[in-house]
């Protein structure tokens, strides 16, 4: 799509989302002699009572979260705002970054955010959430076991981490690891040296992004049970069991941050049916106090840690499981993410 056509389409998307009586006016600025000295154009927005605001904009086919800083500082050279980014399609993560930076945006699928003080307007509209014009890019999703293992490795092992090291640790081939890192860097979830190792990982953001493509009760095979003798009895029997297990959810969170443990145990085991029978649990549709999960990948049993003789999943796993659990669990996840961000380690 040529840039002028892109801007035209995005402008029309904006036009249809504006309230009745508001008029936008587009002006493209093309300067072939010094393309860096001027913005791509301006859009004037006029309210029904005649108050006008001029937005300077930059138009891009695609914008990645890591591009946002540079785009904003370029716009700042042209005017003191307000600013607008025009794109063919903006992913949810890019839109979040733009919003954080207080930059308005519009894309050709109808994703719009327009917040102006004078004339006063607050407009947010949702278009497509997935790119209707997918390029042949790798990644773009953290769905599936391989992506999960990459995220876990990036969160669990300290940077710097070479691509081949990451591939080994995550149990994936080097070319896959390389493509994922490339994409995650564009998503501003990690930084890497040019053609070099991963230098830093924004762990909390990484786990939040993973949670968009992962859901603890769907990505894993979850079964509900009742231990009629209660959780304390359940944990005791689990400790005495001979099969592999790892506790996640609230019970794990409560060991990391100051959280009152919930009264639902979530535990990874290889075979929920057999484990349930061995632990004398009853299958339960209602009144369950135990959830046994057959894992999406054996990685849930890696980098576990022990408290006494009880085994818990790694904080990164506990966090993504809580983020995608019902009830007050997502709030508990935030406590773990904060703990991860603060760089503490058990």
């Amino acid at each position: 799509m040529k840039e002028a056509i892109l801007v035209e389409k995005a402008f029309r998307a904006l036009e249809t989302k504006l309230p009745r009586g508001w008029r936008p006016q587009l002006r493209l600025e093309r300067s072939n002699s010094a393309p860096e000295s001027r913005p791509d154009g301006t859009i004037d927005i006029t309210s029904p009572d005649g108050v006008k605001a001029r937005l300077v904009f930059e138009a891009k086919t695609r914008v990645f979260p890591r591009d946002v800083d540079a785009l904003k500082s370029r716009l700042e050279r042209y005017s003191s705002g307000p600013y607008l980014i025009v794109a063919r399609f903006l992913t949810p993560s890019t839109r979040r970054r733009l919003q954080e930076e207080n930059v308005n945006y519009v894309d050709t699928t109808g994703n719009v955010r327009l917040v102006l003080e004078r004339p006063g307007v607050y407009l947010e509209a949702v278009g497509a959430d997935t790119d209707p014009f997918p390029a042949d890019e790798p990644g773009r999703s953290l769905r599936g076991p391989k992506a999960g293992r990459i995220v876990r490795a990036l969160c669990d092992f300290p940077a710097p981490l070479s691509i081949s090291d990451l591939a080994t640790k995550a149990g994936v081939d080097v070319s896959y690891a390389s493509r994922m890192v490339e994409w995650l860097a564009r998503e501003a979830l990690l930084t890497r040296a040019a053609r070099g190792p991963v230098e830093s990982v924004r762990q909390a953001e990484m786990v939040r992004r993973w949670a968009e493509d992962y859901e603890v009760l769907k990505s894993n095979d979850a079964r509900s049970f009742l231990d009629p003798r209660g959780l304390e009895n359940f944990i005791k029997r689990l400790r005495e069991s001979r099969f592999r297990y790892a506790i996640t959810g609230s019970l794990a969170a409560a060991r990391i941050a100051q959280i009152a443990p919930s009264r639902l145990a979530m535990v990874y085991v290889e075979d929920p049916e057999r484990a349930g029978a061995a632990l004398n649990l009853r299958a339960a549709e209602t009144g369950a106090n135990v959830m046994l999960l057959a894992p999406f990948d054996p990685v849930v049993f890696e980098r576990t840690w022990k408290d006494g003789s009880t085994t818990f999943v790694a904080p990164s796993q506990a966090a993504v499981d809580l983020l995608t659990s019902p009830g007050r669990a997502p709030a508990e996840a935030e406590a773990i993410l904060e703990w991860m961000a603060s760089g503490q380690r058990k």
Partner: protein
Amino acid sequence: MDGEWTAQVIDPVYVVARAALLDALDALGEQRDAVVLVGAQAIYLHTGDTDIAVPAFTTDGDLAIEPARLKPEPKLAKAMERAHFRPGIQPGSWICERTVAGVLTTIPVDLMVPEALAGVGRRAARLGDHGARVGRRARGLEGALVDNSGRRLTSLDPDDQRAFEIRVAGPGALMVSKLHKLAERSQEAAGRRVKDKDALDVLRILRAISTETLVESVRRLQADALSAEVTREAMTHLAALFGSASAAGAQMVIRATERLEDPAEMARSCEVLANELLQALKL
């Protein structure tokens, strides 16, 4: 990590209730050989806190009396008065007032006689020279004299060093007597006196005591002529009150744990554990 799973906070009323019970046992002197500890305090000795968000707590001290072991002296009434108890309205009920956290609180100690050994009468038990109002008849307590074991009963207050060797009813006998109490009370007018807490005490026993241990205890009661009949009745009550999640006892447990536990989890636990026991007993 064990201690962290349950906050071991003991209710101050419970601490004072235990102290009052120790006062009574102290004054009873040689008659201690004739009593068996029953009721909630005996249950909590077996079960601990049972991982239920309602703390174990009671004001009552309940003692079952075995008439055949009573000695002529000391007289029961004299002993209770020496420990600063006075007779309550009902026969066998002895009460005292103690200050708990600045509040004057009535603490009862009940002396009860299993109905099969209580002689004729409606409420009071005939205890020969000890008098007719010292003890109360109670149906369902028979098992306490059959299934019990010696234990050292200590204070819950670290500054109180007293301790007495005393017989404590076994878990089966305690469950049988609670089930009788629940069944009797649920038949009273509009169930007004029904205490939901008694139903929760039954669940505490079912949760904390393994089914094998309970089966052993109940079998002992079934095998003894003194307790066979009340035990058979109690097992019928167990099926009727706890055998399904919608049964009266299970619903009482829900009320007793309201807003502290998941009601469906509580009710289903009653159903599962009661049926597990009844099946193991082949009833």
